[in-house]
């Protein structure tokens, strides 16, 4: 018989501490759907997605029931649409509509992959796709978009950085009547992973198999509660507790990934061992940092605490899964994290601190509301700064900022659901226009020359 304490611990993690599987994401390659006729291409995409993911949602629900672990999202990621659009030409929004229709048919929460990879320059299809992002996000509900503008190997494509500043503003304007939801579904990456199951940045990379199952775990509440049990432990003890907890969380992710893969007869890709917060009370990454001893997230010491957390999560999770990938680490999306929202409201957390945190967390400046009148070049400069941190440190960084149209610093912007909501944060408006307008490429750093 199993240990009673172990059984009750697992149930408490799920019932009280919000342990869940954040997402089962099916990656589907659309490379065999390319056609010179865009209509035909869209039909093939719809057929392939609905065929491959026909049982994704029902299988997810079945596993949820049998194992008693909530699986919050069932999602799909596809080959970057710019690659498909390059073959057919035409208006890429047609693809967004085909994807939307497929998402509604199979009942998934999101489809990611309205994407382009332009770290070194624009290929056929890339520019048209990027230009169409605001319209695509405004006319669909389930589509997520991402653009990779830099990498450690390629450097930073500053023409794309400049372009993306404008696209973020346009995406906000195009959805101003829907609470500026557009840019909340758009991520600008440096070093984007090709197997990420988390939205809005998921896409199915060109090196991936035809179809694959990736799973993203969650569980900030579990870590936070485990730390409550050692109020006086030193930081070595803290790291140990985080590791052990991350191990347990990831083992559940691995189990669900293996089961989903077996039942759907689709190969298992990776488990993304991330701590993904939600706006629910008790499910916050900021609260873990505060449990470590910070009076409020954002104070001096926050970056060090986050570095410890991020590293310990990886160390604990890595042995629990046969294949680890995606973003894997602690997320710090401001509007999706109750502790971060409070810290941003009180002024304890500012964008400079968040930028420092992105050097040690798993992603970047995520879900940050900025003033609606922020010039495009300022957003481009934010993207360039983040990309530089990612490029130099050989890590993924990303920017998902939301210009809150018609709102100023201190006003609130809410999205609802997992995307949450929060205050518009203050950012520097001193102009970087000349620097951004220079264009060109920031050369790949010396760290890229590893051969």
């Amino acid at each position, binding site marked *: 018989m199993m*240990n009673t304490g172990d*059984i009750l611990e*697992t149930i408490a993690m799920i019932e009280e501490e919000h342990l869940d599987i954040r997402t089962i994401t099916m990656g589907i390659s659309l490379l065999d759907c390319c056609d010179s006729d865009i209509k035909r291409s869209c039909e093939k995409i719809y057929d392939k997605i609905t065929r491959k993911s026909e049982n994704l949602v029902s299988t997810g629900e079945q596993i949820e029931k049998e194992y008693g672990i909530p699986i919050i999202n069932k999602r799909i990621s596809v080959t970057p649409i710019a690659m498909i659009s390059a073959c057919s030409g035409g208006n890429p929004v047609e693809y967004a509509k085909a994807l939307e229709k497929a998402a509604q048919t199979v009942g998934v929460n999101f489809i990611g992959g309205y994407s382009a990879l332009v770290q070194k320059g624009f290929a056929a299809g890339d520019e048209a796709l990027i230009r169409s992002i605001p319209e695509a996000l405004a006319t669909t509900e389930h589509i997520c978009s991402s653009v990779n503008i830099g990498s450690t190997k390629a450097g930073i494509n500053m023409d794309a950085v400049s372009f993306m500043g404008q696209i973020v503003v346009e995406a906000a304007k195009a959805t101003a009547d829907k609470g500026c939801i557009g840019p909340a579904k758009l991520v600008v990456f440096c070093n984007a992973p090709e197997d990420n199951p988390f939205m809005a940045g998921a896409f199915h990379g060109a090196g991936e198999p035809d179809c694959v199952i990736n799973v993203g775990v969650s569980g900030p509440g579990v870590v936070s509660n485990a730390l409550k049990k050692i109020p006086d432990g030193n930081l070595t003890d803290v790291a140990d507790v985080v590791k052990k907890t991350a191990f347990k969380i990831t083992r559940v992710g691995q189990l669900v990934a293996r089961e989903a893969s077996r039942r759907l007869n689709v190969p298992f890709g990776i488990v993304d061992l991330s701590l993904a917060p939600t706006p629910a009370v008790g499910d916050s990454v900021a609260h873990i940092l505060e449990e470590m001893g910070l009076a409020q997230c954002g104070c001096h010491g926050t970056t060090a605490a986050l570095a410890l957390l991020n590293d310990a999560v990886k160390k604990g999770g890595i042995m629990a899964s046969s294949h680890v990938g995606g973003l894997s680490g602690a997320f710090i999306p401001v509007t999706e994290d109750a502790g971060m929202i409070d810290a941003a409201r009180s002024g304890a957390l500012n964008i400079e601190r968040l930028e420092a945190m992105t050097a040690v967390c798993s992603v970047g400046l995520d879900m940050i509301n900025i003033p609606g009148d922020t010039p495009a070049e300022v957003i481009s400069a934010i993207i360039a700064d983040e990309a530089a941190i990612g490029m130099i440190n050989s890590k993924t960084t990303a920017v998902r900022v939301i210009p809150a149209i018609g709102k100023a610093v201190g006003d609130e912007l809410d999205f609802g659901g997992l995307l949450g909501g929060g205050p518009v944060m203050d950012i520097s408006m001193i102009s970087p226009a000349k620097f951004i307008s220079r264009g060109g490429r920031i050369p790949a750093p010396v760290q890229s020359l590893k051969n």
Partner: protein
Amino acid sequence: MRAVITVVGKDTVGILAKVSNFCADNDVNVVDVSQTILQDMFCMIMLVDTEKMGIPFTDFSDKLKEYGESNSLKIHVMHEDIFNSMHRI
């Protein structure tokens, strides 16, 4: 497959009997039972074999949950693998 049934709540007469009767009615074999009182709360853990179960697993689990809710008990039915994978290497 084998599942773990956990019952947590206020101790009353006949909880064990009712849950095991329900198992028997559905051809679910009870492999092991342990029960304790934790801080005045009744806590029972049953390991059951659902191989010959006559109804779908989800119905079995839903019905037990319903019974629990109508008797102020929290009842969970979960595949044993979730506990094994989390607590055993």
